[in-house]
C-alpha cells in the first residue's frame, strides 16, 4: 500500500554503496525469527520443576477484607499478605509539591481498592490446577462505596480511596501565563471533552517466570518488560535485596506500549514465592486479567476554553484537565505523570500569548493508569484539535487555515513555547500544507456540496501534534519520580572473527532495534549488518538504562552505540596503523577497513590479530582493546520534537452511526530516519491504535466500579479490516542536538488519529447540528447525538 501512495520521499543512503547504514530501508533482521514463530517469549520458557501461579483477585472495586478462607488441604499452596513478611509495598512517589503517596501492597492488606487487585497467590503444577485452588478460596468482604467517576471523586464528601488523604487528589497543578489578556477575545469557545479509559492490549500480555540460583545467590526474574533495569531497582526495594542479587531477563516481548513499563505486584509476589519454595514459578497474564486488573490508560476529561481573534489567531487557552489515575501510583512513572504533563504539552505546536491550565490526578477505585503510547499527548491533541475546529467554524475559516495561522514557524526554530518547551527544529506549516494538499481538501469540499448517493455524510478532519521524545535529565529531574534518565550507555565489542556485539540497556518489543542499532553501528564501522548482534533485555548482559519508553531508544541508545562504535573504531584504527606500519594520523577507517597510503587492513584482521595473534602486535600497542562502553547524551537533553499532520476523510451513516475511513494521509517529520521502513511500521502500528482510541476502545464501568468489558468480545480493538491503507509522506528536518539528526518517533502514530477522525466525523455531521466531543465515537454515540440534534431542531422550529 505504501507503493501506491506516490507521496514518499526516499532519501539517499548516506553511508553510500553498502545500503546498510543510516537511512537504509532494510527489512528487519529479527523478523526472520519472529515471523517464523521462533520468538522466545516469557511463556515459552520451561524450567525444571516449574509450577504455575494463579491469583485470587478482588471481585469488588472497594471493600474491607474481613477474612480470606483457605481450605485446609490447600494451606501450603495459598499465600496472602500475612505470609509476605518483610515485603514492602510498591511506592512510586513524585517530588512535585503536594503529591500524595499511595502504597500498593503486593497482596491486598486490609482493603481492596480495585476490581482485580491481588488478594491471594495460589501455586500448583499447572495453571488450571492453580485456578481451581484460587476458585476454592472464599473472601469475606465488606463492600464500600466505589469511586468510579473521577469528576465526582473530586467533589468534597466523596468516598475516599485512601482515607488518610482526606480527598481523592493525588496531585493538583497550576500553570498560568496571565490569561486575563485573552478574556476580551471576540471568539470564545468552551467545551467539555473526554477520552475513554482504555487497555493497551499488546499481543503478548505480561508474564513472569521467577527462579532462584543458590550458587549465584541470585534471583532470576524473566519478565515481559520494557525496562528491565528499572524493574530490578523496584524489585530490590520491595524485596529488601541487593540489586546484584537480582537478574531481570526480558526475552522477546510482544509489544509494550507502556503496559510493560511498570513494576508489577505479580513480579514481587513471584520473586518471593520462588525463594520461599525453592522451585521456579510462572504467572502468565490472561486477557481477562489484562483488561480488568493490571493497568488502564487514556482516561482524560477537559473543561477547556479557547480564545481567538476573528481571523482565527489564538489569544489563549484556559483549561482544567482531570485524569483518572486509578487506585495506586505505579512504579516508576507515578500517578501524576499523565495529568501534570497535560499542563505542559496542551499548547502543542501552536503559538499563543496567554495560557492557563489546572490539572488534577484523581484516585478512583480502578486499576492504575499508565502512560500508553503517546502518553498524555493523545488526549491533549484530541482536546485542542477539536477546539480549533470549533474556532474555525466560529471564524468561518477552513480548519487548516486556523492551524496555519497559529503553528510555530520554521524561521522561529529553535523555539521556546509558552510552557517553555524547547522545539529543536521543524517546519510544521509545511507538514499541514502537504497533508491538506494530499487529502485534496478542495475536492472533498466539492464532493460534500454534491452529497452522497447512499445518504451518508462525508467529512474531512485534520490534526497536528508535536512529540517531545528522548527528554532526559533536565526534564525528569523535576518530576522527582523513582527514575531519572542520565547518560545512556552502550557497549561495543569486536569479536575475534570480526563480528560486532552491541549491548544496550533499552529493549526492543516491536521497534526493530536489532536492525536499526546495527545500522547505526554499520554507519560508523562498516561492519556488515548481518555480522552485528544486538544484545538487550538482560540486566546481567547490558549496561544500565532506564529502558525503552518516551520514544527515546533511537536517540539515546542509537547515540550511545554511535559513540561507542566511534571509540572502538578509533582503537581499531590505531592498531591498524601499527599493523600497516603507518603513522596513526595518516590512516582512516572506511568501509570496515583501516586504510593508509600503502595498503589497508580489515577490522576482521585487526580483531584476529588482537585476540588470536597478539604476538604480531607491537609492544607499544594501546592496551585498551576492542571492547568499549561509552555513555551518551544529546547536546541538549530537553528532547527532540518530531511531529506529523494527519488528515482523514470519513463517511458517516447518521442513522446507523457507522463511520468508515475513506482516506487517511500522514505527513511526518521524524528528523533523519535511520530506517524508513521501520518508521513506516511504527506509524502504521500507531495509527491502528489511534483508530482504536477514536472509534472502538473503551473500558466502561458500572456504578459499583465493575469493569464491563472483560473479554475481547466487549473490548473492541481495530483489526486489519478497520485500518485503512494510509498514505505516508516523510519530511526530514534533522535535530541539531542528536547523532545523525535523528528524532524519536515511536509514539506519534497513536497521537493524532483520534483528533483527525473526530474532526472528520464532526465535519460530516455539522450540517445536522451534531458535535461529538468524546472518544470513542461509537455508533450509539453518533445516533444519540443525531437524534438529540434533530429534537433540538424540532423544538426550535
Amino acid at each position: 500500500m505504501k507503493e501506491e501512495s506516490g507521496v514518499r520521499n526516499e532519501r539517499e543512503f548516506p553511508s553510500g554503496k553498502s545500503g546498510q547504514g543510516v537511512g537504509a530501508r532494510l527489512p528487519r533482521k529479527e523478523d526472520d525469527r519472529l515471523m517464523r514463530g521462533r520468538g522466545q517469549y516469557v511463556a515459552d520458557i520451561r524450567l525444571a520443576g516449574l509450577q504455575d501461579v494463579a491469583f485470587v483477585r478482588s471481585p469488588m472495586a472497594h471493600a474491607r477484607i474481613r477474612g480470606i478462607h483457605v481450605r485446609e488441604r490447600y494451606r501450603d499452596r495459598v499465600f496472602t499478605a500475612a505470609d509476605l513478611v518483610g515485603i514492602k509495598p510498591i511506592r512510586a512517589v513524585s517530588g512535585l509539591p503536594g503529591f500524595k503517596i499511595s502504597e500498593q501492597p503486593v497482596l491486598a492488606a486490609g482493603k481492596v481498592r480495585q476490581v482485580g487487585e491481588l488478594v491471594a497467590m495460589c501455586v500448583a503444577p499447572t495453571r488450571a490446577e492453580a485456578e481451581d485452588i484460587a476458585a476454592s478460596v472464599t473472601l469475606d468482604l465488606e463492600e464500600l462505596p466505589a469511586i468510579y467517576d473521577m469528576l465526582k471523586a473530586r467533589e468534597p464528601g466523596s468516598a475516599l480511596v485512601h482515607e488518610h488523604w482526606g480527598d481523592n487528589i493525588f496531585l493538583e497543578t497550576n500553570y498560568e501565563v496571565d490569561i486575563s489578556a485573552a478574556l476580551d477575545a471576540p471568539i470564545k469557545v468552551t467545551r467539555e471533552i473526554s477520552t475513554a479509559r482504555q487497555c493497551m492490549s499488546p499481543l503478548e500480555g505480561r508474564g513472569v517466570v521467577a527462579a532462584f540460583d543458590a550458587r549465584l545467590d541470585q534471583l532470576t526474574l524473566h519478565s515481559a518488560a520494557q525496562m528491565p533495569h528499572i524493574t530490578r531497582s523496584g524489585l530490590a526495594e520491595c524485596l529488601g535485596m541487593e540489586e546484584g542479587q537480582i537478574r531481570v531477563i526480558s526475552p522477546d516481548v510482544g509489544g509494550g506500549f507502556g503496559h510493560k513499563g511498570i513494576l508489577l505486584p505479580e513480579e514481587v509476589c513471584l520473586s518471593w514465592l520462588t525463594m520461599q519454595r525453592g522451585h521456579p514459578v510462572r504467572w502468565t497474564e490472561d486477557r481477562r486479567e489484562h483488561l480488568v486488573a493490571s493497568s488502564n490508560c487514556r482516561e482524560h476529561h477537559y473543561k477547556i476554553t479557547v480564545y481567538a481573534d476573528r481571523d482565527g489567531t489564538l489569544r489563549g487557552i484556559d483549561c482544567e484537565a482531570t485524569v483518572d489515575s486509578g487506585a495506586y501510583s505505579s512504579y516508576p512513572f507515578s500517578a501524576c505523570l499523565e495529568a501534570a504533563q497535560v499542563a505542559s504539552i496542551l499548547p502543542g505546536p501552536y503559538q499563543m500569548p496567554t495560557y492557563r491550565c489546572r490539572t488534577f490526578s484523581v484516585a478512583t477505585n480502578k486499576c492504575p493508569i499508565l502512560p500508553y503510547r503517546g502518553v498524555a499527548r493523545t488526549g491533549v491533541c484530541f482536546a485542542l484539535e477539536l477546539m480549533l475546529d470549533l474556532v474555525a467554524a466560529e471564524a468561518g475559516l477552513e480548519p487548516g487555515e486556523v492551524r496555519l495561522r497559529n503553528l510555530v514557524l520554521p524561521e522561529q526554530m529553535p523555539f521556546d513555547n509558552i510552557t517553555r518547551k524547547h522545539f529543536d527544529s521543524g517546519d510544521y506549516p509545511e507538514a499541514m500544507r502537504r497533508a491538506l494538499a494530499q487529502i485534496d481538501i478542495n475536492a472533498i469540499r466539492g464532493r460534500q456540496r454534491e452529497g452522497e448517493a447512499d445518504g451518508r455524510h462525508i467529512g474531512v478532519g485534520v490534526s497536528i501534534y508535536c512529540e517531545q521524545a528522548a527528554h532526559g535529565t533536565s526534564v525528569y529531574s523535576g518530576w522527582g519520580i523513582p527514575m531519572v534518565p542520565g547518560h545512556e550507555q552502550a557497549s561495543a565489542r569486536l569479536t575475534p572473527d570480526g563480528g560486532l556485539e552491541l549491548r544496550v540497556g533499552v529493549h526492543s518489543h516491536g521497534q526493530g532495534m536489532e536492525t536499526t542499532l546495527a545500522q547505526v553501528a554499520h554507519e560508523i564501522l562498516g561492519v556488515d549488518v548481518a555480522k552485528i548482534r544486538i544484545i538487550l533485555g538482560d540486566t546481567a548482559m547490558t549496561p544500565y538504562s532506564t529502558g525503552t519508553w518516551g520514544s527515546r531508544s533511537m536517540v539515546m541508545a542509537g547515540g550511545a552505540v554511535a559513540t561507542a562504535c566511534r571509540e572502538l573504531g578509533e582503537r581499531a584504527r590505531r592498531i591498524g596503523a601499527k599493523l600497516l606500519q603507518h603513522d596513526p594520523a595518516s590512516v582512516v577507517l572506511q568501509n570496515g577497513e583501516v586504510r593508509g597510503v600503502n595498503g589497508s587492513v580489515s577490522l576482521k584482521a585487526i580483531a584476529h590479530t588482537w585476540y588470536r595473534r597478539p604476538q604480531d602486535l607491537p609492544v607499544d600497542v594501546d592496551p585498551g582493546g576492542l571492547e568499549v562502553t561509552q555513555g551518551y547524551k544529546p547536546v541538549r537533553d530537553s528532547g527532540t520534537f518530531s511531529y506529523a499532520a494527519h488528515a482523514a476523510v470519513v463517511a458517516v451513516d447518521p442513522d446507523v452511526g457507522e463511520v468508515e475511513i475513506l482516506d487517511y494521509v500522514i505527513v511526518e517529520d521524524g528528523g533523519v530516519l535511520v530506517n524508513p521502513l521501520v518508521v513506516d511500521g511504527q506509524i502504521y502500528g500507531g495509527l491502528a491504535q489511534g483508530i482504536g482510541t477514536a472509534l472502538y476502545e473503551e473500558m466502561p464501568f458500572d456504578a459499583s466500579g465493575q469493569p464491563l468489558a472483560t473479554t475481547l468480545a466487549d473490548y473492541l480493538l481495530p483489526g486489519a479490516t478497520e485500518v485503512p491503507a494510509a498514505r505516508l509522506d516523510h519530511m526530514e528536518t534533522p535535530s541539531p542536538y542528536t547523532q545523525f539528526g535523528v528524532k524519536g518517533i515511536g509514539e506519534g502514530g497513536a497521537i493524532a488519529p483520534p483528533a483527525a477522525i473526530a474532526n472528520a466525523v464532526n465535519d460530516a455531521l455539522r450540517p445536522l447540528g451534531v458535535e461529538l466531543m468524546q472518544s470513542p465515537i461509537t455508533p450509539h454515540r453518533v445516533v444519540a447525538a443525531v437524534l438529540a440534534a434533530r429534537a433540538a431542531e424540532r423544538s426550535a422550529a
Partner: protein
Amino acid sequence: MKPAPFAYERPRDLNAALSMLAASSGSAKIIAGGQSLGPMLNLRLVQPELVVDISGLAELKRAELSGGELVLGALVTHADIEDGRTADVTRGAMRTVAANIAYRAVRNRGTIGGSLSHADPAADWISALAALGARVTLRSLSGARTMPVEAFVVGALESALHAGEIVEAIHVPARAASAHWGYAKSCRKTGEFAHAIGVALVDPAAASARIVIGAIDTAPIVVTDAAELFGGRIAADYKERFDIRVADALLVKAGVDDPAQRHIHLSVLKRAVQEAAA
C-alpha cells in the same frame, strides 16, 4: 483462564450421545465446534461435570433435500454453507448469511446447530432462520419434536432444549421464486457480533411477509405475518408502504428503551427492507 475440571466423552453415534446426556441429569454440556462454549468454559462461566463432544456423529453432518425442504444436520458448519458444500433452497440467502458470520476461522468450526443451541441474540442464524420459516428438530432418548426456530429461541442464551435433548436437524423451507430477501446487520467491526439485525422475507405475489428484528437483548422479534408493518397489505409497493412506527412499537414492547438503540435497529431493518430483492 482455564476451565474447571470436567469429564469428556466423544460418543460414536447419536444414541450413545443421548444416553450420556440422559445419564448426566442436566450436568452435561454438548460441544460441537466449540466457538462459544470453548471461551465460556475457559472463563468458567459454565462448569459442567461432563462435556459431550458430538463432533464425531456422522448422522448430524448430513444435508439433504427432502420433500422440497432442506434438512441440515446440526453439525453442518457455517463454512459448509458458505462454500456451497450443502444444497441450497433459499436461492443464496443462507449462503450470504453464512459468509458474513464472524471470521473464517469461526465459520470453519462453528456449526449451525451449535449456534442455534447457544441462542446468542446477536448471532445470525436465530434471526435468519426464523425469517426463512425454518423449523428445528430436537431429539432425546424419549423421541423427537419439531418446532419453528422462533419458538425454539426463548430468550438471551435460552432455548427450548430440555435436559437430555439435542438439536438434531434444521428444516429450511424452499424460498419461493417470487419472495424477496433482505438481510442487514450492523457490527462495530468486521466479524464482530451484530448490535442490530434486520431481516425481511417478503413475497408480494403471495401477499406474505416475515420480518425479524434481531440482536436485541432477548430473543429476536419475529413477525410471521408482517402485514401490519406494511400498512396492512403486502403488495409490490411494499417498500414504500413500510411503516417504521409499527416496528418501533414492537421494539418498545420488547423492552428496548434506549431511543438511539431503537433508531439503529429501525435503520438496519429499513435497510433490509429497502435492499430486499427476489
